[in-house]
């Protein structure tokens, strides 16, 4: 039993990391209807800049992180100006393709600066295991999980209680009506891409600190896709719950099913859960219900 709980908790905490990346997707999708393929690249981009600056230039971490956040806001601004604005009112698929372009640009830029070798990132979170009863947990996982929870609460509070949050929700509901009340979409887009950038910085730091910073990070970040499908593209709580389900399910499957069918389950299990789920509820667990008055 203790072993089961150990595995489960480890999985759940890893799942929260997927949620972090999925959050970035959800934010942009809600506010602009764009499926931002580049979110995973934003995580890598942020992590590489932080690791690069602190490793190569000797910039202390407390400074490198804010600098990177500012950099991500700059990225948001450039993306809005160069990509989104000229493409406004194009088909969703065109916007989606353009985010694939952004994906490769971001990775390219990061590699021009810092090369493609892997780096370590020491974020100062202790790595000692701790015992609860006879169960063993990783401190790092617990702290990282805590950070994810705090971030989610912050975002939810922002959306619910601030003026800009209300505006973001209004835009998510109806772009044209939002413009009709005087909301400038370009402003809103810079804001959501900046927030998504900020989320990417947090995910980059937490992940980079755990697994090291390397281009392969992008693949891990794509684990956010099944999380998104499961949770629903438009739901922040959905992203969290789905992250937990997928993280936990994946870890348990690897340990208990793995030996039976020969391992390697972790790579595809998440997608299987998402696919099975989509058959029954295409909008995801918490996807915004289409309000229909009868």
């Amino acid at each position, binding site marked *: 039993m203790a072993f089961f709980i150990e595995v489960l908790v480890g999985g759940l905490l890893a799942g929260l990391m997927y949620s972090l990346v999925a959050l970035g997707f959800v934010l942009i999708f809600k506010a602009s209807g764009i499926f931002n393929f580049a979110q995973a690249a934003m995580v890598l981009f942020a992590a590489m800049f932080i690791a690069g600056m602190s490793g190569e230039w000797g910039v202390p971490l407390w400074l490198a992180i804010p600098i990177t956040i500012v950099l991500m806001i700059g990225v948001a601004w450039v993306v809005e100006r160069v990509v989104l604005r000229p493409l406004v009112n194009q088909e969703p698929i065109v916007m989606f393709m353009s985010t694939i372009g952004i994906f490769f640009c971001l990775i390219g830029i990061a590699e021009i600066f810092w090369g493609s070798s892997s780096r370590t990132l020491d974020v100062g979170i202790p790595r000692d295991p701790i015992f609860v009863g006879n169960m063993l947990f990783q401190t790092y996982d617990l702290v990282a999980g805590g950070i994810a929870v705090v971030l989610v609460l912050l975002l939810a509070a922002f959306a619910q209680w601030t003026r800009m949050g209300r505006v973001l929700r209004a835009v*998510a509901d109806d772009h044209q*009506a939002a413009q*009709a009340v005087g909301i400038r979409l370009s402003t809103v887009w810079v804001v959501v891409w900046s927030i998504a950038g900020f989320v990417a910085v947090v995910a980059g730091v937490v992940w980079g600190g755990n697994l090291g910073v390397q281009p392969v990070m992008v693949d891990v970040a794509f684990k956010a896709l099944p999380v998104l499908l499961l949770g629903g593209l438009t739901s922040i709580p959905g992203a969290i719950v789905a992250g937990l389900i997928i993280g936990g399910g994946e870890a348990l499957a690897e340990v208990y099913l793995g030996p039976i069918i020969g391992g390697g389950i972790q790579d595809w299990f998440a997608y299987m859960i998402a696919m099975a789920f989509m058959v029954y509820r295409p909008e995801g667990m918490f996807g915004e219900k289409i309000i229909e*008055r009868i």
Partner: protein
Amino acid sequence: MAEATTARDPLLVMQNVEVVYNHVVLVLKGVSLEVQEGDIVALLGGNGAGKSTTLKSVSGLLTGERGEITRGHITYQGENVSHIPAPARVEKGLSHVMEGRRVFEHLTVEENLTVGAYSRNISTQQTQQDLERVYEYFPRLRERRRSTAGYTSGGEQQMLALGRALMASPKMILLDEPSMGLAPQLVEEIFEIVSRLRREQQVTFLVAEQNTNVALKHADFGYILENGRVVLYGTGNELRENADVKEFYLGVGSGEARKSFRDVKHYRRRKRWLA
């Protein structure tokens, strides 16, 4: 109390405005009209006559639908606004209540109203005062302030859409098809409120309507659009008494099968200002 249309400069002038969608579809073929400050002006006509497009060209919401003003211009308060973005026009006091209400469905009624004041950048206190003002006109919205807007009734949504536009404290409201899908009594109620807003808040209205009867009852002036052109205009009373209008739009016919001005070959189309 229809104010006499004096020689003042009109609040809004459309001069020979031509609108093309998707670079090919010509929808407005040179529409000219004037709206005097403080008037309620009705824009009448059947489906696809170009009423909504006319309003969108004034509010700037055409761009969101790949529409474009290709000729003519729109002057608001003496300034050419034809090509400035929609949000900037809202800041100048031009608010658009779109067809189909378009409330923010997942926001509460009160949140919808609050977002309506976005363009003014006002304090929470001021917002509260303005909310009260809107609730005075629409007591029903006060009762439902905490409800999710998407779950309110059609009439409530129409009131919400109008209230949300009021929160921007507009000089002029472009109101698109407020009667759509509402019971006759509610339609009358909405138009009563429109009249009151004009009287008490000095809001000018340009209302696109298919319900010719109600619209002409409340309007000082009316334009009839057909196929992207203005085919007839006059004061509310003139239009109501006009035999052709009676026949085509009010259903008081002579029995012959004439359905629109197109069928009236000999009809003397009035000279447009510039067309």
